[in-house]
């Protein structure tokens, strides 16, 4: 039995210059807000796509306030364009209902979505990853040739402990790591030192922004937050 879908994944991605997974060892560190805001910021003068691969707990559609758009079916699925970026999520098909998926099914859904989504020519595709180093991370490493990683951590030891393992996995498999973003920084932190000790680039830090929550789903306001401004500075180093 041969699964034919894997064969066209990289063909579908061939017109995308950079593919970056926004990952972390832990949930709740701000991966989705960073992936969404980064995509919006870079889409101002680049061709950008955003793919939400957190199948069981997708949230980028909430952050972006996605409404009344749907992929077009044309020799595959054409991602709809929102705020100047091409956007794809499982949410279009789950009708916002719960999708309880086990590992094998996450893998299958991920392969299917990558096999049938037809992206345009892009400078950058950002992938919002689920937390941890299970199926989606392993599949992206295995299936997407051009993949690079940005890792998000908070200043917490608990967060960095899981990030350390993710870094070790990626380094052992010779996966390119662009760098680490320290999110929700509050006071002194050991993260920069530890990241540099591991030979990874420290891209910068973002302070905890109490205003951010208010502007979830309101893109214009979101882009005016101190969070977005600080992320904008970090984004200048990326592409």
């Amino acid at each position, binding site marked *: *039995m*041969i699964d*034919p*879908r894997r064969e066209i994944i990289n063909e579908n991605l061939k017109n995308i210059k950079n593919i970056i997974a926004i990952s972390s060892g832990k949930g709740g560190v701000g991966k989705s807000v960073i992936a969404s805001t980064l995509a919006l910021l870079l889409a101002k003068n680049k061709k950008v796509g955003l793919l939400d691969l957190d199948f069981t707990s997708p949230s980028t559609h909430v952050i972006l306030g996605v409404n009344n758009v749907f992929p077009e079916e044309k020799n595959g699925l054409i991602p709809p364009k929102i705020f100047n970026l091409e956007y794809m999520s499982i949410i279009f098909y789950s*009708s916002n209902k719960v999708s309880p*998926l086990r590992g094998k099914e*996450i893998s299958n859904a991920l392969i*299917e979505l990558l*096999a049938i989504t037809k992206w345009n020519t892009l400078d950058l595709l950002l992938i919002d990853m689920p937390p941890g180093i299970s199926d989606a991370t392993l599949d992206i490493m295995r299936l997407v040739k051009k993949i690079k990683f940005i890792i998000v951590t908070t200043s917490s030891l608990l967060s960095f402990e899981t990030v350390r393992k993710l870094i070790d996995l990626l380094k052992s498999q010779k996966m390119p790591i662009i760098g680490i973003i320290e999110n929700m920084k509050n006071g002194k932190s050991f993260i920069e030192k530890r990241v540099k000790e591991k030979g990874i680039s420290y891209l910068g830090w973002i302070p905890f922004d109490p205003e951010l929550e208010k502007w979830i789903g309101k893109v214009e306001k979101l882009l005016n937050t101190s969070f977005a401004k600080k992320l904008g500075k970090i984004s200048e180093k990326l592409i």
Partner: protein
Amino acid sequence: MHEWALGEAIISTVSKIAKIRKLRKVEKVEIRVGELQQIEMDVFKYAISQLKGKKFEKTKFNIKTVKTKLKCKFCNYEWVFKRGKLKEKESEFIHFIPEIAHSYLKCPKCGSPDFEIVEGRGVWIESIKGKR
């Protein structure tokens, strides 16, 4: 016409395997399509006929549908997928991503959404026969 993308996947895979096995001529490709994905057979066949090109002009692409067997992880009940009470939209969504069935189907015995697709998920190649 997402069948087109699946057709492209079939042709690319056959091409790659023929190269690996050093097949001069591919005579027959057996394709299986699980009922869960509800592939439009005419569209799928048309896509393959348009995509196969000169290289596979004389290759026979046999396509057979396979019933979808589901098994509840909670109570172990096994059943065969039928579109049944699924709404048209739900059915269409499962067509694009079969795993999305977990948002719309439940075990008929215990009501759990935690089931396994044992067989008949999507599209796969059963065998490729040719001559060196």
